[in-house]
């Protein structure tokens, strides 16, 4: 089977490279590849110059290892990393997947499952196949990370590979163990439960002393916090409980080869233990692979999110314009994909924010106000790039969209409507919160100025959001092969170049689109500021927003020919 696996890996790698080279024959991919290569060259060149001492002050700082770069890490870095690994190990029992090792492709299900190959050999095959991705990530990270000498980077890459491989194996082990939890035999269930009990036990034995150490007395600084974590993890039961997790991470914090080589065997032992655990659980493989095969059968070619049929309290009216129908569709998509996992992540984030706010020297009000302003800025400037519930996702349904009797302008406006409304709602609520708490941050600024600025933000931000969404959707129509569809993401140098071009182009176009509005708004501010004071920001903002709004309408109206020219082959080629 190892020979067959190597054959599959070699053939698929060769074919992927061939396809990539062939793709470069198209000018847009070639341009993107050149842009991506230029980016990597620039980054690497900078790194090499730094390391060769061309910039002495930076070189001294950058060539140091992680531990030297951040002295506090030498003290408690491994312990903190071990704690993080433990938290992930425990958390992954709560939110398990099948584990990417068990994420067989359709072809593997079709060809290898019926083949006379043992379950264990199938797992070995997946482990071998995953090595390309597992090696690539740490290598790129080690090259691009802005600090560390060359040997330190090699050590970092090796450790990251061990960490990632262990994590992937462990997640698959969880999937197999969970499958065994449903077994009718009590002994099998007990055995499957054992690792969970061990992880929870480790968590409990560490959480209590750690909580006492951290919350007992106020923390002076990061070094103090790290020292306390190191102290807790170095003695008694927490030391034993944390050992496998610290062992995995500790090579990352080795200052030289000697300590690295001393810590490496322990990390490899943990990795081997994870592999052995997966092999021991291979009895459950039949159950889980049946599930995988079923999923593969029903799953469309690209991985898609799971939805649940929730009622959303909005029934589409049988008559009316097309735009609200698209918005309705997007609302259903958003509300039906919301999962407990996302809510928990949100809860953790809010909890973290609350914790930061409570220990901040500014006080809770000021911290929350700053946080609200950051959210406003992020939602306005990066929200449209991240929130892709528009044509960028719906291009995968182009085959259906193209048969509908809907004008391109209506389609694009309809696709933009919901993300624009959602981001605007976030901006408005956060601006309101920031205004409410603004006294804590801008105590010397008058309420009139703060309120006027907030109102102007509420007017201009939706226009800027709409402008960016219009640009992203226009780009999706004009350069469909550059759009990452759904969960699918293009990889490779040309993909990096494409993203750079898209982000750079969008930034430039937004700046150009905002310029006339900003100019008119500026004229209004200049003309009326002396008469109505800070209140002038409101009409200035309104005029600016109106100008951008008109531009957005014109852009959507101009997209008709691009939509008519577009056909599904442009999308399919990206698969």
């Amino acid at each position: 089977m190892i020979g067959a696996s190597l054959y599959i890996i070699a053939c698929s790698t060769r074919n992927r490279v061939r396809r990539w080279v062939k793709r470069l024959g198209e000018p847009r991919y070639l341009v993107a590849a050149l842009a991506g290569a230029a980016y990597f060259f620039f980054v690497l060149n900078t790194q090499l110059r730094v390391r060769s001492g061309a910039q002495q002050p930076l070189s001294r700082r950058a060539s140091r290892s992680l531990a030297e770069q951040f002295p506090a890490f030498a003290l408690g870095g491994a312990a903190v990393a071990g704690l993080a690994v433990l938290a992930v190990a425990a958390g992954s029992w709560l939110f398990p997947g099948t584990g990417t090792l068990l994420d067989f492709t359709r072809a593997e299900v079709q060809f290898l499952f019926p083949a006379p190959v043992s379950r264990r050999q199938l797992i070995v095959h997946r482990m071998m196949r995953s090595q390309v991705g597992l090696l690539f990530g740490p290598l790129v990270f080690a090259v691009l990370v802005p600090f560390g000498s060359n040997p330190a980077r090699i050590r970092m890459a090796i450790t990251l590979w061990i960490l990632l491989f262990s994590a992937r194996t462990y997640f698959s082990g969880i999937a197999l163990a969970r499958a065994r939890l449903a077994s009718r035999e009590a002994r099998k269930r007990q055995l499957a439960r054992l690792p969970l009990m061990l992880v929870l036990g480790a968590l409990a034995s560490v959480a209590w002393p750690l909580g006492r150490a951290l919350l007992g007395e106020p923390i002076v600084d990061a070094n103090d916090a790290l020292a306390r974590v190191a102290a807790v993890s170095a003695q008694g039961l927490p030391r034993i409980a944390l050992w496998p997790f610290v062992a995995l991470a500790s090579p990352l914090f080795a200052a030289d080869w000697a300590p690295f080589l001393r810590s490496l065997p322990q990390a490899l032992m943990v990795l081997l233990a994870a592999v052995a655990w997966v092999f021991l659980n291979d009895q459950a493989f039949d159950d889980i692979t049946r599930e995988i095969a079923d999923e593969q059968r029903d799953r469309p070619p690209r991985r898609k999110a799971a939805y649940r049929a929730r009622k959303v309290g909005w029934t589409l009216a049988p008559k009316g314009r097309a735009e609200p129908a698209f918005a309705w569709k997007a609302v259903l998509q958003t509300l039906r994909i919301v999962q407990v996992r996302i809510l928990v992540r949100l809860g953790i984030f809010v909890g973290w924010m609350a914790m930061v706010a409570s220990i901040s020297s500014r006080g809770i009000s000021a911290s929350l106000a700053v946080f609200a302003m950051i959210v406003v800025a992020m939602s306005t400037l990066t929200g449209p790039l991240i929130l892709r519930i528009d044509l960028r996702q719906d291009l995968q349904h182009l085959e259906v969209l193209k048969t509908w009797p809907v004008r391109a302008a209506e389609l694009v406006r309809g696709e933009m409507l919901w993300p624009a409304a959602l981001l605007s709602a976030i901006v408005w609520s956060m601006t309101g919160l920031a205004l409410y708490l603004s006294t804590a941050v801008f105590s010397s600024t008058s309420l009139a100025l703060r309120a006027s600025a907030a109102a102007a933000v509420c007017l201009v931000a939706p226009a800027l959001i709409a402008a960016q969404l219009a640009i992203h959707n226009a780009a999706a129509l004009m350069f469909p092969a550059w759009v990452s569809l759904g969960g699918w993401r293009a990889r490779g140098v040309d993909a990096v170049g494409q993203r750079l071009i898209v982000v750079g182009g969008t930034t430039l176009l937004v700046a150009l689109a905002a310029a006339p509005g900003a100019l008119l708004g500026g004229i209004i501010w200049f003309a009326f500021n002396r008469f109505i004071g800070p209140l002038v920001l409101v009409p200035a903002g309104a005029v600016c927003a109106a100008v951008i709004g008109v531009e957005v309408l014109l852009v959507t109206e101009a997209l008709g020919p691009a939509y008519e020219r577009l056909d599904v082959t442009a999308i399919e080629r990206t698969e």
Partner: protein
Amino acid sequence: MALSVEHLRRTYGAFTAVDDLSFEVRAGEIVGLIGPNGAGKTTTLRSLAGILKPTSGLVRIDTHDLTGAPLEAKRRLAFMPDEPHLFEYLTVTEHLRLIGRLYGVPDIDRRSTALLGELELTGKETALPNELSRGMRQKVVIACGLVRDATTLLFDEPLTGLDPIGIRRMRTTIVARARDGAAILLSSHLLHLVEEVCTRVIIMDRGRKIADGTVAELASRADLAEAGSNLEQIFFRVTGHDTAGTAR
């Protein structure tokens, strides 16, 4: 003429998938589009549905040019693809409601209920596509096409994934729609189905039309006289195979 195709040509780079294809489908007619794999049937149907832009040629739906007046043409057209393509976050009823809104279908709820009953989807109204079997998803796609009064219906392998009862019902539905005045173009590899329901047959091979007529007309053609009188025999003869399927 409900559907008129003139000199349709579609290329993918250097490869010509459909070459100089011309035909018409009148109201009430069911025309079968058959051919070996790679003959260009699906490319033809997708070009007629507005999914692929023809490289050249003219497509008219009820006299409306698909390229010049796409909205008017598409309003009169329903395309049922072989691969059920649904929005994974919309239920069965919501799909029909969305179609009703976009096509301006009056009384969409009543029509939907009746159609879901006809296609044996009653009880699945609130199901998402991932809760449906492939056959049921295919039925939803067909329901989306039939819920409006399209004058031209394009079916690409409409029976794929359907059970025997579904197949029989679908045959009845197709014939009933033609009787009501729709022009139907049906692509299928099931030659017995084509022979049974179609009033005329177009055979394609390597992107070109190589035969067009009723089964009786094709059987009486001089060069096909030896082939036999059923569609399967004619098909093999026209595409250059013997009856065992071996290329001659």
